[in-house]
């Protein structure tokens, strides 16, 4: 089966996608080689490495990497593997150091990646080893956007903002302060856990699979939102807004709400007056600062290929690291405004924990679905039958009312768009194609 051309496995015209890409070891291998070595991947947040010498061990695809701030405050991402015999040089999750000393034969590296110490260098390597040629392996591309650190293994990768394209307007609503000041978020914790499912189920969920809402009926029934009322798992901040599901030419997808020109504050956080006050104030400030841009209110999104977000309730970034076709390591980074009052941070973190992650009453049901969808697609017979992605065929507009392929109904357009781009990576196409420069003719004509 896997020898079929990728265009037959991924038929976005007819909305048919082979189960092979979710279960086959061959596809998994090709994803690691062709996709995770090129796409921009989220590796961490500057708040996790605030001071010189601070490091945070992260992942890119199947690789452990070290995100670190060197003695001169420059940020680096290194492969977490010694140049000598490959030992994982850092097995602490986070900390501060002036040297990474390899536990195996004690080669040591400075925080800017240079190989500094080689035991018995004179006696054993004199004239042979040029230490300057053996630094830690560093990503060729690293960019920081509103404190989030991104990296790519492809020296030809385009600028991060070109890669994010118009999806950045939605990501901004995650990363900006609630009162509209640019950036200013901090990570208050990271959860890591193992999902026995293909990573793309999780990514797709965040592309805007609002269709799966019925699977969250239990948590809606009991009500775990910040206002504590039954019937909801969140506050409804979006009354009167137009829900939009948007695909972007480079493969990203979001579910946001486009608010009317005039829209009023919707009170939330009814159980916590001080927090309600914070968000009410922030709402008006945000409108004042951002103007028309404040009309975008984010729900969820997935930045191609595997960085997902929740925009407001809860708020954070998640990364789906593939371990195998049927196993994923999930990392969830929880965000708050760094300068929010303690009482606000406390209410938010408690809500985040009861909503998201493996102990989250909402996400537990997602994990159950992803596991058994993967599990029951593994069989020989199952693999003969494609998944159905035919919802809302053709029902979208280009750049109306906001940039992108915009649907105002729940749609498989966003995943169809995602897998079209995915197929391009799997065929090893050039960056113009990966960015979907051919896919947005209307927009180019308008410019």
């Amino acid at each position, binding site marked *: 089966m896997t020898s079929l051309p990728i265009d037959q496995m991924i038929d976005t015209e007819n909305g048919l996608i082979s189960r092979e890409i979710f279960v086959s070891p061959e596809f998994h291998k090709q994803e690691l080689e062709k996709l995770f070595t090129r796409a921009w991947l989220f590796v961490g947040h500057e708040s996790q490495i605030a001071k010189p010498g601070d490091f945070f061990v992260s992942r890119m695809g199947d690789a452990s990497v070290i995100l670190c701030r060197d003695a001169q405050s420059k940020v680096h991402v290194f492969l977490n593997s010694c140049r000598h015999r490959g030992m994982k040089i850092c*097995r*602490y*999750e*986070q*900390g501060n150091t002036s040297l990474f000393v390899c536990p195996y034969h004690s080669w040591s590296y400075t925080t800017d990646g240079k190989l500094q110490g080689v035991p018995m260098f004179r006696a054993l390597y004199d004239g042979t080893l040029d230490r300057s040629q053996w630094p830690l392996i560093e990503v060729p591309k690293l960019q920081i956007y509103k404190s989030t650190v991104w990296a790519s293994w492809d020296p030809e990768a385009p600028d991060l903002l070109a890669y994010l394209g118009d999806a950045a307007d939605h990501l901004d609503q995650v990363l900006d302060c609630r009162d509209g000041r640019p950036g200013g978020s901090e990570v*208050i*914790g*990271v*959860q*890591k*856990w*193992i*999902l*026995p*499912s293909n990573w793309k189920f999780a990514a797709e969920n965040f592309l805007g699979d609002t269709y799966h809402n019925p*699977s969250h*009926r*239990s*948590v809606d*029934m*009991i*009500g*775990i939102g910040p206002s504590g009322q039954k019937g909801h798992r969140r506050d409804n901040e979006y009354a009167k807004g137009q829900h939009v599901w948007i695909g972007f030419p480079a493969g990203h997808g979001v579910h946001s709400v486009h608010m009317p020109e005039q829209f009023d504050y919707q009170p939330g956080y009814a159980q916590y007056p001080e927090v309600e006050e914070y968000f009410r104030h922030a709402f008006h400030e945000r409108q004042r600062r951002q103007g028309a841009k404040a009309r975008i209110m984010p729900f969820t999104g997935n930045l191609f290929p595997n960085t997902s977000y929740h925009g407001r309730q809860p708020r954070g970034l998640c990364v789906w690291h593939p371990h195998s076709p049927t196993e994923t*390591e999930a990392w969830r980074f*929880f965000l708050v405004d760094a300068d929010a009052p303690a009482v606000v941070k*406390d209410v938010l*973190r*408690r809500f*985040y*924990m*009861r909503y998201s*992650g*493996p*102990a989250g*009453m909402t996400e*537990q*049901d997602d*994990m*159950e*679905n992803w*596991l*058994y969808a993967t599990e029951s697609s593994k069989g020989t017979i199952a693999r003969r039958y494609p998944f159905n992605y035919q919802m809302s065929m053709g029902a979208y507009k280009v750049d109306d009312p906001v940039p992108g392929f915009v649907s105002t109904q729940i749609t498989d357009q966003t995943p169809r768009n995602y897998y079209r781009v995915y197929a391009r990576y799997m065929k090893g196409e050039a960056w113009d194609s990966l960015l979907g420069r051919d896919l947005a003719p209307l927009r180019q004509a308008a410019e």
Partner: protein
Amino acid sequence: MKKDLAYYELKQEIEEFLYQEADLLDARDFKNWLDLLAEDLVYFMPIRRNVKFGEHGERENTRQGEGISWFDEDKWTVTKRVEQILTGVHYAEEPLSRVAHLVTNVRLVDVRPSVEAPIEVTVSSRFLVHQNRVEYENHTFIGRRTDTLRRNGDSWLIARRELILEQNVLLAKNLSILF
């Protein structure tokens, strides 16, 4: 603490209580289990991190009351967890998992005001919680537990439960069961 007869009598009583509590959970008698929780309950399971030698006290466990843990919650939230299971459509626990709570290494580490007239007791134990789900899913959660129990008539209320799970990356997809 003096290991006299009074100590062992109290220890026996506390062990009985913990085993009965485990029975309620394993029998899925969640509502009666909730009645064993004090109104001011703290239910806390930190995330454990890989840190350098010497930093364990300071940094190994996330802390109650700040940042993100696995659980850091109150009775309202734990009650919501029970309500959710009882909806019958909480798919992560529908069909219900088969769970066995093993409680062992029970020790009283503090009794207030006295072993003879105890009002609050701090109990240390180890847990092994085994979850089997649907057909092939098996998860084993092993760790240390520190409970603060409060006298309630001839029984006890759990006022605080701290669960130190001996894992870093959580190896189970969900923490959908009660500990």
